[in-house]
Structures are given as structure tokens and as C-alpha cells.
């Protein structure tokens, strides 16, 4: 067998690692691969620059359109296409889709249950040096308030690839939240994902850390590993499907560990923490402490790392916050 090279399956952890792909890269590749197999898939975008649309444009030029800098029209046109049987992926900044084109998303996608998928880039605080106009901490709250809207936040490039394929198969509107930079890999080749699902990444009895999205899940895992030296065993749940949400895993976590701490690169109002609180308040009330972007816009620019520290979302801050909560509730 010497000399034979086993081809890596697209979307697999090894494939992602080998090519150094980001979540955006694999989302775009998943769109391309879905389009290879299904001629209803179209990929449209709003002047996104170097964000991976070229391969699709080259291979399926008749199913790729750049709508320029006009998000309301981009979303409305996607809905029109979907009404004629197409499955459009709308590639734009998540913040612009969900805020600037919010009413088009509400009426044209959610109300009409249009089979349109939004691939939202530049979410959270990854664009640290771009300043507050390009930080985005509201998209999850807005998207999940819309009836019938599926909201997904993949934790890494492996999840982004698989969840993009799942979105393509799903009948109805889906928002996929993507960051921008290459991120830590959370998943290996055994990972599988489904809309409405979740993944338990670490088992523990003292506290459950529920996280979703790029960086936040990896941070939650790193914090859990670090907490072991303080004799704190944390369960870690990747809640990548924020809507529909895996109520079972949240109720089970609440019952097993009591205390829950949530970690998200989104406002603590209306996002992952709120989702968790809504479920456990109704079904298994336990304390839920939310870590996320504060209810204010950033006053200073800075690197992603700086912004994470500012929001208390770096590994050290999360570790300390979880340890503090556990000590408080053990007393």
C-alpha cells in the first residue's frame, strides 16, 4: 500500500487541518459541493471581497450573482429566487443581513418561509480594529426572534462545513453565523451535526458551560480543561443549533450539574445565554450566569484578543468566572 494516498473527505477534520481552512472557507466550499450535486443551489453575495466566492463563480457562473452593496435587494431577490424553486445562499456580513436588511429577512424569508440560507460573516468582535460599526453582537437575538428561522452557530471549520450542508438540505430559512479568521479546531473526524442537535464535548458534574460559535466553544473547552487543576469538573455543551434548540441536553445538564455558565461572542441579551435561560427557567430552574458582549458598544479599537479580553471572553477570564461561580454556589 506504500505510495497510495487516502483522499481526505471534504469537511473532515484532517481535510480542514491540511488546508488550514476557516469556517467561512468551508461554508463556501460546502455551498460549492452542494451545488455540484443539486442544481437548485445558487450562491449570491453582496460585494464580499476575498471571501471565497470565486470558486463557485468559476464552476457555476450561471448560478452565482454579485448584487453589490445592497443588502435589502440581496435578501429580497434571494426570496424571489426561492419562490421559483432555487435554494439561494446569501453571503454577506451577518450584521448587515440581520440589521440593515432586517425587514426583508423578517417578511421575505421568515414570514414566507423562503428556502434561503444566510451565511453571515464578520459576526461578534472579530473585526476588532474595524471598530464598532463592524462589531456585531445583535444578530442572534434578532434572527431567533423571527418565527420559523433556523439559527446555527458552528464552532469551527468542520462544523461549518457540515452545518452548511445541513442548511442546504433543510426546507426553510436558515441563518448560519460565521466569524472570519481561521479558528481552533474543536472537532475531529467522528463529529456529526444535525439541526436541533448539540454536542457534549466534556463531561463533568460541578458546572455546565454552554457555548456556541467560533472561539467561544474552543474557549469553553480550554476553560474546562484548566478548571480540572482547581478540582472543578465542568461539562461543556456546544449548542451549535441555537434554534431549534436541544432542550433535552439543557434540561439534563441543569439537573446533573445545577449551575450553568454560558459563553458567547454576542450580547448577553437575546443570544445563547438567553436561549439557555428560557429553557431551564421553564423546565429545570437553575442559576444561569451569562458571559458575552456587554450591553454597550466598544469605545476602543484593538485586536481580536484585546476585544475578547475587554468582554471577558478570553480563556483566563472565562476560567476565572466559572471558578468564581462554582465557589459561590458551593458555599
Amino acid at each position, binding site marked *: 500500500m506504500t505510495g497510495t494516498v487516502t483522499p481526505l473527505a471534504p469537511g473532515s477534520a484532517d481535510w480542514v487541518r491540511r488546508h488550514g481552512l476557516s469556517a467561512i472557507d468551508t461554508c463556501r466550499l460546502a455551498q460549492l459541493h452542494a451545488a455540484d450535486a443539486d442544481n437548485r443551489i445558487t450562491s449570491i453575495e453582496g460585494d464580499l471581497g476575498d471571501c471565497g466566492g470565486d470558486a463557485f463563480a468559476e464552476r457555476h457562473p*450561471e*448560478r452565482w*450573482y454579485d*448584487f*453589490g452593496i*445592497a443588502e*435589502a*435587494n*440581496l*435578501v*429580497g*431577490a*434571494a*426570496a*424571489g*429566487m*426561492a*419562490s*421559483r*424553486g*432555487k435554494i*439561494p445562499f446569501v453571503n454577506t456580513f451577518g450584521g448587515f443581513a440581520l440589521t440593515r436588511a432586517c*425587514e*426583508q429577512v423578517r*417578511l*421575505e424569508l421568515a*414570514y*414566507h418561509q423562503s428556502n434561503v440560507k444566510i451565511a453571515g460573516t464578520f459576526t461578534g468582535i472579530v473585526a476588532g480594529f474595524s471598530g464598532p460599526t463592524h462589531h456585531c453582537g445583535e444578530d442572534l437575538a434578532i434572527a431567533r426572534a423571527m418565527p420559523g428561522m433556523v439559527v446555527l452557530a458552528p464552532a469551527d471549520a468542520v462544523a461549518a462545513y457540515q452545518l452548511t450542508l445541513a442548511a442546504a438540505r433543510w426546507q426553510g430559512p436558515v441563518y448560519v453565523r460565521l466569524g472570519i479568521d481561521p479558528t481552533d479546531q474543536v472537532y475531529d473526524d467522528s463529529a456529526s451535526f444535525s439541526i436541533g442537535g448539540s454536542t457534549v464535548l466534556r463531561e463533568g458534574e460541578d458546572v455546565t458551560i454552554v457555548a456556541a460559535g467560533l472561539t467561544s466553544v474552543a474557549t469553553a473547552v480550554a476553560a474546562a480543561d484548566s478548571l480540572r487543576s482547581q478540582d472543578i469538573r465542568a461539562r461543556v455543551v456546544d449548542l451549535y443549533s441555537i434554534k431549534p434548540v436541544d432542550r433535552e441536553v439543557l434540561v439534563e445538564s441543569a439537573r446533573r450539574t445545577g449551575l450553568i455558565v454560558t459563553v458567547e461572542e454576542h450580547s448577553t441579551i437575546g443570544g445563547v445565554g438567553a436561549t439557555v435561560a428560557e429553557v431551564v427557567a421553564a423546565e429545570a430552574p437553575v442559576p444561569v450566569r451569562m458571559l458575552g458582549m456587554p450591553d454597550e458598544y466598544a469605545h476602543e479599537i484593538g485586536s481580536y484578543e484585546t476585544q475578547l479580553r475587554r468582554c471577558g471572553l478570553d480563556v483566563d477570564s472565562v476560567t476565572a468566572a466559572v471558578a468564581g461561580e462554582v465557589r459561590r454556589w458551593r458555599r
Partner: protein
Amino acid sequence: MTTTGTRPLTELATRIRHHIAELATTSPGAHVGGSMSVTEILTVLYFDGVLRVDPDDPQWNDRDHLIYSKGHASAALYAALAERGFFPVAELAAYKQPGSRLAGHPSRSIPGVEWATGSLGHGLPVGVGIALANRHDHNPGRVFVVLGDGECQEGSIWEAAMSAAHFGLDNLVVVVDRNGFQEDGPTEEIMALEPFADKWRSFGWQVSEVDGHDVTQLGDALHRLPFTAGQPSCVIARTEKGHGLSFTANTHTWHYGKFSAEQYRQALAELSGQRAEAGS
């Protein structure tokens, strides 16, 4: 059903106005002004052989699409759809009544309605998407988007207009009901649109300006589409807000309202006079 000759079309327009007057009386209220102004536009689209639609099969794959972006004026649309046979004329009595599907703004639960509208500025982007998909699929269905002039103050209209020309969508047609009024008053006083035709031309559209109450002029324009291959077509139909009734014409007061019994009697009298005239 195709009706030819101006006399039956004029008569149909009067019949639609009759329905509008009735709905403005029996319902909590209706957008009278914009319904009365768009009446001949809908009459020509549905009854002069312009729109290729099948009331027995509203989802027919090769149909033309009408995106009625000015969804407020639902009374006129419902009357036209009922007269065209998409649902029984008797159902019009349910307009804005509890439990009815005939809401103040059209929803897709109504046969013949392609898109839920009424929040303004939404129709043209959707039309662009349908036109793109149909062109990709070599589907003959064209897309007609009926816009109110006031809603052309929305930026999304011009985003869509720009893209329709950029993509060369000659299967897309805009018909603007240019009645010159919006809720707060004359468009030119509230937020001027003129030079309106020039705006569309500069965005890459071929424009035809017609008298929007003259079914012959409307028909002539809508039967020679596209005006130019490779370009979207725009028909600016100059109309009168509240046209057809002396007390609703040329005012924004009747943008929305409810007729009293007396107003209804007057409307009937004026409309039967027009009907006799059209039939004479």
C-alpha cells in the same frame, strides 16, 4: 378570458370601483385613494390579455407573476382577482372581517396573490429574484411589479432597479401608479420624486409614460413588452388618486377611510352613471 375593445374594459374598471366602494363601506375601512387610482392598471393587466395566468391553476409553472407591491390598495386587487375568477366574487364581502383570508394587506393564502405585500418597497427586489430564476430556467413567465409612487421613496426600490438593469432583466416590468399623493399629501411636497421618468431611465430602464386611466394607452404599452431587448421596462401610469368618485378624487384625505351610508349612496349613483356611459 380575454376581453378586447375598450368598452368592456372600461365597464370592468367601473365594476371594480363599485366593489371598492362597497368594501370601503362594509369593512372597518379601505385604502380608497390608491385602489381607485390603480383600477385601470389592474383591469388591463388581468382582462386585456396581458397577464398570462390561469385562475384554475394559480401556481401554473409558466405563468406571469404579478407582485402587487402597493399592497395597501388591496381592495382593488381583491376585486380584480375575484372578477378574474381566482375566488368567488361573493367572498369580497368578507374583506377585513374576522376569520377571513382577505386581510387589509394581501397574504399568500389568497389565490392569485404571489407575495405578501403592504410593507412598502419590498416588491421589486422579490421581482428581480423571480426574473433571474425564470431566465435561468428558460421559463417564459414574466414578472410585473405594480408600485405605488410613494413607495418609490424607499431605497430598496432603487437597489432593485439598479440590479434589474445590471442583470439585463427584460422579463421584468414595473408599472408605477403615479397618482401624485402619499398619505401625508402630494409626493412633490412630502418627498419629491420628479423628474421621475428620468430617474428610471438613468437607472437603465426603458420607460413609457401613459395616462393610467386610459385603457387603450395602458394596453398599447403593456402589449409591446419588452420595450427593448435586454432592458427592464417601466410603465409610468399617470393617475388620479381616488379617481372615479367626485368626493375621493385628487385628494389625500381619502388615502384611507370608511364610507358613510350617504357616501356609499353617492358613490353608487356616480358609478352607475359611468357604467351607463361606458355601456352606451
